[in-house]
């Protein structure tokens, strides 16, 4: 029996997917009910029923909050969590580095720079919501990945964990200095630097949901199709080449998919740090490193993780709110040390 799981797919059985879906749905419902204003479960269902059936008499006093604020927000949070987590898992595979994540590598920072530049210097292309901002963020995310990989390759051919992380830190600092510079020049147009350094999904709408969903469907199918190649990368690039992986092409495909996802997420929610670090790591402890399981499971896990972090961020200091990035960074920084220590012992 184990042999068939390894070669044929190696993915989960349908029942396992069902369980993960159910768990995620549970967290979703909790997140919709609770918040700075708590809403009874009955009202939630009545509001949704009213919206779906169009029968106005079902609407309750909380319907506006539920339908227009809470549900789109929690949906955005769940989708962002799934996206960032998937990106983290993919990068950790490609780079054979358990500390890789959009935020630790500086890719999110690069995407923020793109978004800030687009906002400051105009050119809002007619495109989904954020307009040129989304496109610029994606392009900058990809360029950042290319720079970080190129630079760490130049510094250390074996691409060791520490080199990549150090390059990421240096790059992040570089990017944040440029963001500050742009903000100093652009002044009013980019109101708060904190929005780009401490992400928040507080005020997202259904258009944002649709944007992330589209990106996630597109990129996730691409990344999931490359599970076996990611397994090969996770055993070293030489090994991947030896077993017949088209290293350059697959890597490019994966990096583009990751850039698109990170770019979209950053342009909507800013930099929400460490989700892609914490969630795949915890998932890996449950599922093992095989990407056939890891990728899909970490999407569910990431969605739940960010929904809970967001729930915390909007209830802990109520009626005020913390940016969700504050919560994830707090958890993430602790996890970073833990994983770094552990991976140091092995490597």
């Amino acid at each position, binding site marked *: 029996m184990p042999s068939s799981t*390894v070669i044929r797919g190696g993915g989960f059985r349908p029942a396992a997917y069902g369980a993960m879906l159910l768990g995620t749905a549970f967290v979703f419902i909790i997140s919709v009910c609770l918040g700075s204003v708590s809403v009874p479960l009955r009202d939630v269902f009545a509001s949704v029923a009213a919206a779906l059936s169009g029968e106005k008499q079902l609407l309750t006093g909380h319907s506006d909050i539920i339908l227009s604020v809470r549900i789109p927000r929690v949906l955005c949070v769940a989708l962002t969590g799934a996206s960032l987590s998937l990106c983290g898992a993919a990068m950790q595979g490609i780079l054979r580095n358990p500390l890789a994540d959009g935020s630790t590598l500086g890719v999110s920072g690069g995407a923020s720079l793109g978004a800030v530049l687009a906002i400051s210097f105009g050119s809002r292309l007619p495109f989904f919501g954020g307009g040129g901002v989304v496109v610029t963020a994606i392009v900058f995310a990809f360029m950042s990945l290319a720079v970080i990989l190129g630079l760490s390759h130049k510094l250390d051919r074996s691409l060791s964990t520490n080199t990549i992380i150090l390059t990421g830190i240096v790059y992040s600092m570089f990017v944040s200095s440029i963001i500050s510079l742009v903000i100093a020049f652009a002044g009013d147009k980019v109101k708060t630097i904190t929005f780009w350094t401490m992400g928040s999904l507080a005020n997202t709408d259904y258009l944002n949901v649709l944007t992330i969903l589209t990106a996630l469907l597109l990129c996730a199918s691409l990344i999931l199709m490359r599970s076996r190649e990611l397994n090969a990368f996770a055993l070293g690039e030489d*090994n991947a*080449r*030896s077993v*017949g992986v088209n290293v350059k092409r697959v890597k490019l495909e994966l990096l583009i998919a990751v850039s698109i996802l990170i770019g979209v997420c950053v342009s909507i929610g800013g930099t929400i740090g460490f989700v892609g670090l914490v969630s795949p790591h915890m998932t890996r402890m449950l599922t093992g490193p095989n990407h056939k399981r890891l990728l899909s499971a970490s999407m569910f896990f990431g969605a739940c993780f960010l929904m809970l972090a967001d729930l915390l961020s909007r209830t802990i200091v109520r009626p005020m709110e913390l940016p969700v990035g504050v919560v994830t960074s707090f958890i993430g920084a602790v996890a970073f040390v833990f994983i770094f220590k552990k991976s140091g012992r092995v490597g």
Partner: protein
Amino acid sequence: MLKVENLGVSYGDLKILDGLSFTLEQGQWLMIAGPNGAGKSTVLRALSRGCRYTGQISLKGRDIKRFKPHILAQKLGFLSQRHEVTYPFKVREVVALGRYAHSKNALYGGAAGDEEKVSEALSLTGLSELAEKSVLELSGGELQRTFIAQLFAQDPDIIVLDEPTNSLDLIYQKQVFQLIEGWIKKEGRAVISVVHDLSLARLYGTKAILLDRGRVVAMGQPEKVISEKYLNPVYSMDVSGYMREILSTWQRG
């Protein structure tokens, strides 16, 4: 099977490898020897298309650059000297990756017979018992055998080994070489390996190339190539004398 013509590799102005030509026929075990910096590993890197090179490498009459990566992998497999294991993959999962070249399609789980090949490779390398163990828990020898099993599962025509027994205990060294020796016996197979240990090159090789600073010093039968005449100037020392001196300590006991 394999033909290398006028192979050259340089980094900037530095010529790492210059004008190397050789052929490999089935049943042959080619040993590439030479001191540090002779360009041994660079030959392998060029073969795996891990670096740019001039000249031509052709496999069964066709330039290797024109093969798709997974088709090439069906014919040519590599074993590197160090393995980078970061994640706790199971031994079986690592070995199963060897079948990638034969069933690349992502939606289709695997070709018929893949499972048999993997099980066979595991039992050939004596890893059946360890199949469900995490690679992080293996000893150096077990890890090397895992990757050899992956190669066996990949089932290429030619296996290329980069110092396969570096840093392995003697017992594992012997195991690895015997495994390869058994593997090569089957029709249509050949091996190229880079070795540091000159005695091993003489013992197992059927053909040898001695390299020095990127150029061929000698090529032919191992006993002739790995001999005082060529070795002493290349290593600037009395190689065979030193070997005998080492061995004599055994006779004294």
